[in-house]
């Protein structure tokens, strides 16, 4: 057993671009983060911010063309996945790093029994006979809490409910004891009651198997419940990177504050929820300055002229905002502004 804080995944200045006839869309435009063993990292943002592209880039599953990893490194235990040959990459996929997707209804092959789909993943990465793999698949179904797993393994996806299918996806993802699990909106398509069960399952299995988990979500509730650290993404950049505790207690970036302010709070009675005005800039045509400036109520001249860097603050939170630099003129807004 390696030490608990071993770095599994180190993403450095990752850039994923899409070349279309409208131009180049810089969906992911230079992001950095690390994932340690046993850690759960949340990546939060609106749809289109690049969070799913980030997760697909790690496994090199970006449809190409038009997508392409345009720069940066993805170091898994020190090996750069970006430059790995295809056959080496295939050995990583599903074995060292596996992934569960947000659409359990369509993510399983409709014409192959679910047990066989799990067994396929096992046999790809482990020396096992068909029979052994089949038995292991049933074990995995048992592990993710599917009742009468022997029977279910022989069924095809259409015979299973959505929650059940997501459990199958999880069983498949975990079947080769991966070091890293990427969960891309694993609960978005599910009923609220099932959502909690699936999150609980992922947490429990992480505790038992000690993986690093990347939780991609737009739901801050999911973050609060599962994550140790959080990266907030906006328009292809990370704008704030903090421990979950810090993020909720002391959000720094105006965008993060906006996200938090737009959450309904139980102890308050408001008629209207806070919304962030304006819209995300086009991925084809990013502004030179801060990408959030056009929607930010505190924006100053400097915000429109120069893009801020991701700067570490005294409490360890990293934030990409001029407000936390020496160049900022005037008072820094306080929490109250949003309430």
């Amino acid at each position, binding site marked *: 057993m390696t030490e608990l804080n071993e770095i599994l995944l180190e993403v450095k200045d990752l850039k994923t671009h899409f070349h279309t006839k409208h131009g180049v869309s810089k969906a992911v435009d230079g992001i950095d983060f690390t994932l340690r063993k046993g850690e759960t990292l949340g990546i939060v943002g609106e749809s289109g911010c690049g969070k799913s592209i980030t997760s697909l880039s790690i496994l090199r599953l970006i449809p190409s063309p038009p997508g392409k990893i345009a720069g940066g490194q993805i170091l898994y235990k020190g090996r750069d996945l970006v430059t790995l040959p295809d056959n080496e990459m295939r050995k990583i996929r599903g*074995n060292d790093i596996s992934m569960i997707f947000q659409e359990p209804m*369509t993510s399983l*092959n409709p014409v192959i029994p679910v047990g066989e789909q799990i067994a396929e993943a096992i046999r790809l990465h482990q020396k096992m006979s068909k029979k052994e793999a089949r038995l292991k698949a049933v074990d995995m179904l048992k592990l993710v809490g599917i009742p009468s797993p022997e029977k279910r393994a022989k069924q095809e996806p259409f015979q299973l409910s959505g929650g059940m299918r997501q459990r199958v996806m999880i069983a498949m993802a975990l079947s080769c004891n991966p070091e890293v699990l990427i969960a891309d909106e694993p609960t978005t398509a599910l009923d609220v009651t099932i959502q909690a069960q699936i999150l609980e399952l992922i947490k429990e299995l992480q505790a038992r198997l000690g993986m690093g988990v990347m939780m991609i979500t737009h739901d801050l509730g999911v973050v609060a419940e599962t994550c140790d650290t959080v990266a907030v993404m906006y328009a292809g950049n990370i704008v704030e990177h903090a421990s979950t505790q810090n993020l909720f207690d002391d959000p720094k970036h105006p965008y993060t504050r906006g996200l938090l302010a737009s959450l309904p709070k139980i102890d308050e009675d408001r008629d209207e929820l806070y919304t962030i005005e304006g819209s995300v800039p086009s991925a084809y045509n990013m502004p030179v300055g801060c990408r959030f400036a056009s929607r930010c109520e505190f924006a100053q001249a400097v915000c429109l002229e120069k893009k801020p860097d991701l700067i570490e603050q005294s409490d360890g939170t990293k934030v990409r905002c001029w407000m936390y630099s020496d160049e900022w003129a005037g008072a820094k807004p306080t929490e109250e502004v949003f309430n």
Partner: protein
Amino acid sequence: MLMFILRRLVQTIPVIFGVTIVVFIIMQLVPGDPAVLLAGEGATKETIEALRVQLGLHQPLYAQYIDYVTNIFRGDLGTSLKNNQPVLDEILIRLPITLELAIISTFITVVLGMAAGIISAVKPYSIIDTVVMILALLGISLPSFWFGLMLMYGFSVKLQIFPVAGWDSMAHIVLPAFTLGAGGAAIVARMTRSSMLEVIRQDYIRTARAKGVKERVIIYKHALRNALIPVITVVGLQFGALLGGTVLVESIFAINGLGRMIVDSIRMRDLPMVQGGVLVASLVFVVVNLLVDILYRFFNKRIELN
């Protein structure tokens, strides 16, 4: 599944009756009095009248239709005006030949079409794909009767590889079957390609990639099975076009099948034969469609219930 088959069987009955009605109505379109035509020139009024009663033409139309259908159920499709033989007997001699031709051609349609479609879809927008798709476009645009003549000219007259016409050996089958199957193969190829490209975009293909499955296995194990399901329907429809096409191909290659029988009978104004031939060919097509539907349903049950 059993319920589906039963329901589908029941639905077929009105279609079969519909077909008999249409054939019956079409024959009413024949200009002139059939009795006069049949009696020939210089026949007396009495002869014509007697013939009219004999043929049941003095009855109202609906009664004539009921007679017609009742006779069909008795296996009586009328008698040929040319040789006075029962129409059914002649059809039963010809039908196996046409079915043989149609089945071999369908096989060519399916194998050639699917193979070409898969080759295209594996490397979309590549040179191979472009060439295959251009060939497919030509395949749906070339008139089969011309294509058949050209094959005959090239392979029988010039190269002398295959016999010119007839239906005696396997060598005789090659050119007509290919002529008949090529158009369908082109359509199946286009359909297979677009279906494959559609399937390759699906989430479950991404899941397979995320597991570390090889690209080859993804194509042949994960994508192909799903992609071929909609192609089944096209093959079924194509069988109809192909059955109709036997009319042309059998004429070109002098094959004594049902299609040629129909054409010859039209030329000789032997309407009962035409009527019987068209009816039987249509019934064959109805049955094939039924089988294809059941087959489609069998493969598609998972997708439908989703």
